Every structure is written in C-alpha cells, then in structure tokens.
C-alpha cells in the first residue's frame, strides 16, 4: 500500500463533508461577509432597492461606537468564565463516578441526560418559574434571597443563565467523557495498582491525561456554544434583561438583523464575533494540546 493511495483516500473521505460545508456554511458565510460591507437588507427577488457599499463603516460603528455591543462582549465573558470551568470539572467528576460500578448507574446516567434532551423552551420556563422573585428558590432561601431577585439582578442574572446552560448541557459533556473513559486501556490502571497507586493517584496520573483529547474538545465546544448563546437570554431574561446585562452577541445580532432588518450591520456583528471566538478557540487548543 503506497502513501499515494492513502492520500487519495483522505480526499475521497473528506469530500462529502466538504461538499456540504461549501453549500451550507461557506456560501452563506461568504454572503454574510459580503453583506457586512454594505448597508444591506433582504429584499424580494426582482425588487429595485438601493443598498450602498459602505466599506468598513459597519465594523467601525460596531467596534468603536456601539456601547450595546461592548456590553454583550462583557456579558459573554462572564458567561464563559462561569460556564466553561464548571462544565469541565463537573463533567469529569460525574463521568468518572458514572463509569464505576455503582448501584443505580442507569438511573444516574439517565437523570444527567434528561435536561439535555428536553426542549429549551420548557427548561427555560421551569427555571424562570423557579428563579422569579416569588418562586420556589427564593421561598426556600427566605431572607437570603438576593435583592433584586436573580433574573432582574444586574450581577446575578448572567450567572443564573450560565448555570442554566451548564446544567442543561452537562449531560452531553458527560457522554463525551464517558466515551473517552472507555478508551483508556484498563491495563494502565492494573499496572498502576501493581505499583500500589491509590485512587487519587490513578485519577491524576492516568484518568486526567487519558482524558486530554476529550478535554480539549469539551473546553473548546463549551466556549463556542457559550459564545453563540441565544435561546436562554431570548426566553429566560426576555431579550437580554435586566438592562441588557444578559444580552448576548448573537441575540443582539438577531435583534439587528431579523427584528430590525439591518442585515449588513448584523452580519458585521456575526463576522466580528466569529473571528473573536476563532482566536480564543485557537489559543485554547494550542494551550491544552501542547503543555
């Protein structure tokens, strides 16, 4: 078998993916980038409309002048700071615990997975009901409840959103880790036991390194999913309240592009966000895979 055949196979295997990628991502994305240089809006086929070329004006206004956009970036930073570490740590702990032979394992696995399969709109309705000022959480907390209440509290609102997303998606990351745990050769553990390694030592020296590829995946995925946060502030805090403190960049883009029909500007938001996330993900991958 020559190297040439292998290379040829590589192209062949990647072809279907690249085809779909070109049609459903590259083309609309290219279109969006193009739009972002215009005062663009969507119009009916054949309609005579004026959509002047504005160069970098959308980007200039967005990056230099748009206070709301800056707020959304701060918001998403808070979100990621809460969500990503929490997700990674909890997912590793739970996956490891679930991987052991414990009574009721099926039950536990199913319960962690439930929020992930449930439609966002219902999850959000329940959380909204639990966390509103007169809801169950505050009734249990009594005097300890924050004032103003969680979802209208400028500090807490985004944290609650971040916890909600962590909670909802954790089951998915646990699955990723479970799959990865299956792949750590059990001989490694047996060898370590022969050497007299304890529970924690094995966890630190075998499990954690064994999970590294999965951890790269989880950190990057949860960052990306976080950066694309949309549904939760859209529904839970009703469009990014209080006072835009949970407004996410994608929700802002949606408001500009879909609600307010300012597609050129919205595209500039999307492109700027994508470049930012790309940079962060690249840094994360570099940091986690080297080391």
């Amino acid at each position, binding site marked *: 078998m020559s190297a040439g055949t292998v290379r040829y196979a590589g192209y062949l*295997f990647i072809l279907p993916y*690249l085809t*779909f990628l070109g049609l459903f991502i590259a083309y609309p994305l290219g279109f969006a980038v193009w739009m972002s240089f215009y005062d663009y809006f969507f119009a009916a086929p054949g309609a005579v409309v004026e959509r002047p070329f504005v160069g970098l004006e959308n980007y200039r206004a967005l990056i230099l002048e748009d206070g709301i956009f800056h707020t959304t970036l701060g918001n998403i930073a808070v979100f990621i700071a809460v969500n990503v570490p929490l997700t990674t740590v909890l997912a590793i702990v739970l996956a490891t*615990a679930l991987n052991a032979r414990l009574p009721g394992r099926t039950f536990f696995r199913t319960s962690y997975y*439930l929020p992930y399969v449930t439609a966002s*709109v219902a999850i959000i309705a329940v959380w909204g009901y639990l966390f509103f000022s007169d809801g169950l959480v505050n009734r249990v907390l009594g005097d300890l409840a924050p004032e103003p209440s969680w979802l209208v509290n400028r500090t807490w609102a985004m944290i609650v959103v971040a916890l909600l997303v962590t909670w909802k998606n954790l089951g998915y990351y646990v699955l990723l880790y479970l*799959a990865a745990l*299956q792949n750590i050769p059990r001989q490694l553990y047996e060898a370590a036991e022969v050497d007299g390694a304890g529970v924690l030592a094995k*966890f630190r020296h075998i499990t954690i390194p064994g999970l590294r590829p999965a951890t790269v995946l989880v950190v990057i995925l949860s960052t990306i999913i976080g950066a694309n946060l*949309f549904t939760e502030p859209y529904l839970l805090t009703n469009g990014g309240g209080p006072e835009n403190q949970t407004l996410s960049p994608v929700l802002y883009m949606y408001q500009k592009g879909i609600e307010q029909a300012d597609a050129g500007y919205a595209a500039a938001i999307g492109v700027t966000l994508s470049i930012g996330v790309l940079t962060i993900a690249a840094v994360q991958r570099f940091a986690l895979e080297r080391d």
Partner: protein
Amino acid sequence: MAVKARKPGFSPRLVRVLGQVLGFAALCLGAFLFLFPFYYMVVGALQERPDPSIAGAFPGPDELSLVNFQQINERVPLLQALLNSLIYTGGVILGTLTIGILAGYALSRLRWRGRELVFNIVLLTLIVPFQLLMIPMYVMVVRTWGLGDTYLGMILPFLVNSTAVFVFRQFFLQIPEEMLDAARIDGAGELRILTQIVLPLSRPAILTAGLITFIGPWNEFLWPFLVTKQQELQPLAVALANYISTVAASTANPFGAILAGAVVLAIPAVALFVIFQRYFVQSETSAGLKE
C-alpha cells in the same frame, strides 16, 4: 473484590470504600439537582394552575389533572407529527453519521495535504452562529433548489455537523496505529479498514454522536418551520411550538401548556436514551475500572 485483596499496601481498603461512598453521594446530590427541575416540570404540566409555593411543588393526587395534555391531543395531530419527526431526525442522523465517520477517519488516520487546514475549518464551522446564515441558506434551499415543503429541505442543512466529525476524530485518534498498519500491510483498502476494524471498535463514539445529533433536529423548530408551511409535513417540535405560541397568547395557564408540550416532546427522546444508554459502556472494559 477478590482482585483487590491480592494487592495490599499503599491504598488501604478504607480509602476505596470511602471513595465509593463519596462518589455515590456526589452522584445522588447531582441527580437531585438534575431531576428536581424536571420533576417540577412534570408537576407543572399536571397542574391546572401553577403554584409557586413550597407546598405547590408536592401536590396531592387530587390536585393533578391531565387537562393540559388533553388540550394538546385535541389541537395537534400527534401521530403524523411524530412520524415526520422520525423521518426528519432519522434522515439527519443517517446522513450525519455517514459523513461524520468518513470525515473523522480522514482527519485522524489518513495523511493528506491540507488535513490540518480542513480540521481548522471544522472548528470554524462550529463558531459561525446559525442565525447569521439562516436567511441566505433559506433562500438557497427554498428558492434556488425548490425544496420548500419537503423532508429533504429540512434535512440537508443539518448534515454539516462538525460536532459529530469532531467526536469521531477524537475517538479514532485513540485506536492504536499498529492495528491499522497490520491491516494495511495485508493490503486492505481504507474503506475496508474503516468498516471492518475501526467501526466495530467505535460503538460508544457512534452512539454518542448519534445521540448528540438526535437532539438537534428533534427539538429544532425554527428551520423546519421556515421550510414547511404545510401542516402534514411539520415535525412534532414545530407542531408543539405552534401550539404553545397560540395557547400562550390566549390561555390562563400558558405555563402548564408549555410544560405539557415539552413533556410530550421529551418522552420519546428519554425513552430512546434509556434503551440505548446501556450500550455506552462495554461491560468488559468497565470491569477493569473499579473507581
């Protein structure tokens, strides 16, 4: 247990037992945190009027009713919608797995020029928010290709699922190179190696990717809604979202209606998970992991 007895020394039995107890306690606490909102959701769906008090979270049997579900049954063609959901979701899973396995294999085990570039593009596609691409994609699928009101129009954009590609790539990376090399020396083609050696080892990854893929189309309502206006073609999520939007606007208990809709949507997903989840862990592997 007999195995443990053979290895005396560094980690005393007590530590193991303690670890297991702690792990079990963590799982129980986690399960409570995960199940409670879900329980609250079911209770909310079964109540005629929502009750945010502490006692309201534990209603007696006489306070429950199926009114919210009866209303759904009257307004939504459940069987037809379920069938549509199965076709839509099934199509997406089949397509995604096929494309994802091929691409994941090419990106992990085959050498070809541009591989790193393509892998970075996979990352990039995760980063682009769907809301940015939606309208150009819609115009292409519906107007250019004339796929409005078809299953294909609903399915196609979901086939570029980079998460699935990612999952397969990370999983395939962990398969020992020697196994593949041995087959290559025997003259096996890459497709044969993939189907006869790699895939049989990859059941957890296939299931993981399948379940992850499943959730997207199963709960998605915006895209299929844009593509299909005919009720006979609408998946369950779209039918329920329509129902919720109507009912929420004109009923005294929108909360109950939303939750009941979500419970109906979640039941098949949860059932599927319960059926398949035992395949996640191959029994022989887990036997080797005692913590």
